[in-house]
C-alpha cells in the first residue's frame, strides 16, 4: 500500500477517524498497532511473524538490560539484540550477495566454487525496522532511555507512517509521546495536510514522471549522447530526492495528523555547499543513526586522525551497503567516504557562507553528488562506467538524446524548491484564511493526482 494510492487514503481516513473518536490512550495505541500490522500485511503478511519476533526479542533484551547490573552480562544482552537484528537483515538482504561475491572472488583466484543462491524475498522495510529496534536496545544499554511496556514498544517498531521507509525514529524521541493521549486541538491540519500534499507532489507528480526518462537512459547509456547523460543523471538526482523526501514528508505528515512528531528527514540537501553539509541535510535519520551507533561505536574522532578517517570511511562504506546488496552501492558509499575525508583534510567548513562563492560551492557539491549518484543508480559497474565516462569525461558514441527543455524544467523545479524554503512564503501559508487553505489543498491534490502516471511505481527506498 503506497501512500499515494487511494486505498491508503481510505485506510488512513478510517484509522484517523477511529483514533480520534476513541478517548482512551491505551485503546488508541492498540488501534494504531493493529492498523500498523494490517498496513504491513498489505505488503506481505508472511513477514508479520518476522517483525513480531524482532519486537519480542528486543523488548525482552530491553527489560533485561534495564534490570541487569553486571556490565559483561549487559554487553551480552545488547550484543544479542544487535546480532539477531543484523542476522535477520544479513540473511534476507545480503545472503545471495555474499554468496555470489564469494563465487566471483574464488573464480578470480582460480578456485572455482559452487554455491547455490537462495530464492529469498526481501521483507519490505527490513532495513528500517531492524535499525530502529536496535537503537532502542543500544540506547537502554547506554542509559539514554528506559524500557517501555510491550504495547508501546511494539507500536514504536511497527508504527505505520514510518514502518516501511523511515524516517528511522529514535526510541527516546518517540516513546515519551506514547505516554499521554494526543490532543486533536494541538494538531495543525494546515501544516500536516500541506506537508502531505507537498510529499504527494514530490513522489507522484515529479519522481514518478521523471523515472521513465532515467530508466530509459540507464537501460542502455551507450546509445545516448553526452547531453542525454547530463539530463538523465540530473533528473535522477531529482527523482531520488523527490521519491524519498516525498515519502518522508508524507510519513511525517500522517504521524502529525495523529498527533505524533517524527522529526525532519531532509533539509534541502541539494543546497548544501559541501558534502559534509549534504550529509547533515540528506536522510538525516539514517546519517545520525550511523553517526551515533556505528561511527561513535567504532571510536568516532577520539583515536587520532587516521582512526577518525578510518571510522568515517567504514561508516560511509557500510552506509552504502545498507542501501542495497550490490557492489555499486558499496562504491557509492566509499566515494562519499573518500570525499568526506578529503573535505576534513582540507578543513572545509560544513556550510560555506562566503557570499556569492557559496552558490558556486552549492553547484560544485551538487555536481559531485550527481557523479556519485551514478553508482547508486547503475544496475552494474559496467553501466556505471558508461555513464561516468559520458557525464564526467563527456565521452559517448551514442546518438539518442532527450529534449533540452527538460533542463529548463529542472531549473524551474529548483526555483520552486528554493521559493518554498523562503520564510515569507512559509509564514504566508500559516496566515491564509482556512477556507482558502482548504481550497488550495483541494486544487493542489487534483493537480498532483492528474500528474500521477496511471500505473503506480513503487517507492525506490522500499527495496531497502
Amino acid at each position: 500500500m503506497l501512500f499515494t494510492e487511494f486505498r491508503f487514503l481510505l485506510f488512513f481516513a478510517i484509522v484517523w477517524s477511529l483514533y480520534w473518536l476513541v478517548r482512551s490512550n491505551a485503546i488508541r495505541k492498540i488501534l494504531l498497532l493493529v492498523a500498523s500490522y494490517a498496513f504491513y500485511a498489505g505488503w506481505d503478511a508472511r513477514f508479520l511473524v518476522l517483525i513480531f519476533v524482532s519486537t519480542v526479542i528486543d523488548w525482552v533484551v530491553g527489560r533485561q538490560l534495564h534490570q541487569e547490573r553486571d556490565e559483561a552480562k549487559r554487553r551480552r544482552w545488547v550484543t544479542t539484540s544487535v546480532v539477531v537484528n543484523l542476522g535477520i537483515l544479513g540473511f534476507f538482504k545480503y545472503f545471495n550477495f555474499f554468496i555470489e561475491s564469494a563465487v566471483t572472488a574464488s573464480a578470480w583466484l582460480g578456485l572455482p566454487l559452487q554455491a547455490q543462491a537462495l530464492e529469498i524475498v526481501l521483507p519490505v522495510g527490513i532495513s528500517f525496522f531492524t535499525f530502529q529496534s536496535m537503537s532502542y536496545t543500544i540506547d537502554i544499554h547506554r542509559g539514554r532511555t528506559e524500557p517501555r511496556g510491550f504495547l508501546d514498544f511494539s507500536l514504536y517498531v511497527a508504527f505505520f507512517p514510518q514502518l516501511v521507509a523511515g524516517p528511522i525514529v529514535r526510541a527516546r524521541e518517540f516513546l515519551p509521546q506514547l505516554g499521554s493521549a494526543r490532543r486533536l486541538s494541538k494538531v495543525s491540519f494546515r501544516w500536516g495536510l500541506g506537508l502531505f500534499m507537498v510529499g504527494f507532489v514530490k513522489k507522484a507528480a515529479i519522481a514518478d514522471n521523471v523515472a521513465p526518462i532515467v530508466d530509459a537512459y540507464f537501460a542502455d547509456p551507450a546509445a545516448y549522447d553526452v547531453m542525454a547523460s547530463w539530463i538523465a543523471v540530473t533528473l535522477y538526482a531529482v527523482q531520488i530526492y523527490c521519491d524519498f523526501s516525498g515519502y518522508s514528508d508524507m510519513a511525517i505528515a500522517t504521524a502529525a495528523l495523529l498527533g505524533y512528531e517524527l522529526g525532519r528527514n531532509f533539509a534541502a540537501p541539494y543546497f548544501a555547499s559541501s558534502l559534509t553539509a549534504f550529509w547533515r541535510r540528506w536522510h538525516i535519520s539514517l546519517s545520525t543513526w550511523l553517526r551515533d551507533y556505528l561511527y561513535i561505536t567504532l571510536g568516532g574522532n577520539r583515536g587520532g586522525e587516521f582512526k577518525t578517517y578510518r571510522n568515517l570511511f567504514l561508516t560511509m562504506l557500510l552506509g552504502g551497503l545498507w542501501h542495497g546488496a550490490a557492489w555499486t552501492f558499496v562504491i557509492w558509499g566509499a566515494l562519499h567516504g573518500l570525499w568526506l575525508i578529503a573535505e576534513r583534510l582540507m578543513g572545509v567548513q560544513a556550510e560555506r557562507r562566503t557570499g556569492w562563492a557559496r552558490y558556486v560551492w552549492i553547484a560544485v557539491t551538487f555536481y559531485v553528488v550527481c557523479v556519485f549518484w551514478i553508482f547508486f543508480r547503475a544496475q552494474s559497474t559496467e553501466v556505471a562506467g558508461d555513464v561516468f565516462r559520458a557525464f564526467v569525461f563527456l565521452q559517448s558514441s551514442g546518438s539518442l538524446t532527450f529534449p533540452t527543455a527538460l533542463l529548463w524544467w529542472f531549473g524551474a523545479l529548483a526555483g520552486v524548491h528554493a521559493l518554498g524554503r523562503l520564510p515569507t512564503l512559509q509564514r504566508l501559508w500559516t496566515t491564509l484564511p482556512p477556507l482558502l487553505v482548504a481550497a488550495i489543498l483541494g486544487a493542489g491534490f487534483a493537480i498532483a493526482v492528474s500528474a500521477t502516471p496511471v500505473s503506480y511505481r513503487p517507492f525506490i527506498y522500499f527495496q531497502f
Partner: protein
Amino acid sequence: MVRETTPSAGKPLGWLRPLGYITAALLAFVGTARLLQRIPRPDEGLIDAKFREFEARADEYTTAYIGSSLVHRHIVPEVIDGHLQAEGVESLSYNFGAPRLSWPEAMRIADRLIADRPASLRTVVIEVHLFVPTARNDGAARYLDWHTLPETYWSIRRTFDEEEPGEKRRSHIESDLRAFGKRAAAIGRLSGAFERLWKPAPDDPRIELDPEAHGYERVEDEPTGAAAGRHRKFRKRIGAYERDVRRARKRGEQTKPMKPYAGTMLARLVDRLRAAGYDVIVLEMPHINQVQIEFPDPVVDGALTMSMYDPVRYPALFDPKLHYDRVHLGDEGAHVLSALLARRLAGVFRRDARD
C-alpha cells in the same frame, strides 16, 4: 539538530467548520479535475486510430459498424460497399470493430459519432456479441475511458443483477470504482502531457491502419501471435468444431435471451442512436461458442435485427476451410460474410430509400 515541531492549531474545532473546509476542498478538487480533463488523454490505441482515420473523411461515410473482433475481422467495407453500389445504393462504410470491445466502449463510440455528427452518416450497425466489462484490462487507458458515471453504475449493477459470486463481484466493483475515480480525477492527464514533452513517439507506436481498408484488418495480420496460436489449436481440433457445427444445425431455431446487462445496454445504445436520428441495425454474427440470441421482435426498440448465425442458411460461414479459428473467419471467409451481409443490407437500404 533543530527539531521542527508541529505548530499548534489553537482553538478547539466545532463540527461545522471542518465540514465547511472539507466541502471547500472537495469543490476545489472536483472543479480543478474537470478543468484538467480538457488535457487530451493518452492515445488508447486501436479505437483512437480508427477515429483518426474516420474523421479524415467523416462526412463521406454513410454506415458505421460497431462491434468486437467479429466486426473488426469480418466486416470488409470495400466488399459491402462494392455490392451495395452495384445494387444502386450509395454506401461508404467504416469498421469500428475492436477486439474485446465491451458494451460501455460501444456506448463511447456511439457518443463520439453522435458528437461528431458526420454529414452523411445514416446507419449504425451494432454487433451483439460485445463483451461484458471485466477488470481484466484494469489500468489501461481504454479501460479508464469508458468509466463515466452512468457506465460505472450499469457495470456495477450488472454484478448484482446477474448474481456474480461474492469475491468476483467485490473485485469487479473495486475495479470499477477505482477506474471511475481515476477518470473523474483526470489521473495521468498532466503526466501524459509531460511524457509527450520528452517522448515524441510513445512506446506503443500509434497504430497506422490501411486507409483503403476503412478499419478492417485481417486476422492473419494480428501482430502478437495470439491469433496464430488459436489458429494452430483450431487446426488440430477441426473434428470437434465440425461436431459443434452439426449440433448447431440440429439446434435449428433454438435461441437464448440476452442476459439482462447486455439487453439493457443494447436498448440504451439503440435509444441513444435513434434519438440522434440514426437508423440502427442490430447484427448477430456467427459465433459457434454461443447459442443464437432470441430477439424479442424483428424490430428491437426501433432497430432492425439481422442474424448471420444460421448454419443452415449460411453453411459457408461455418466451413472450417474459411475459418482461422473457432470464432473468427480468415480473410477469405470475411469477404464471403461481407458479401452475404451486403445482399441483406441492400434489401433494407433499398426499402428505406423507397420509404
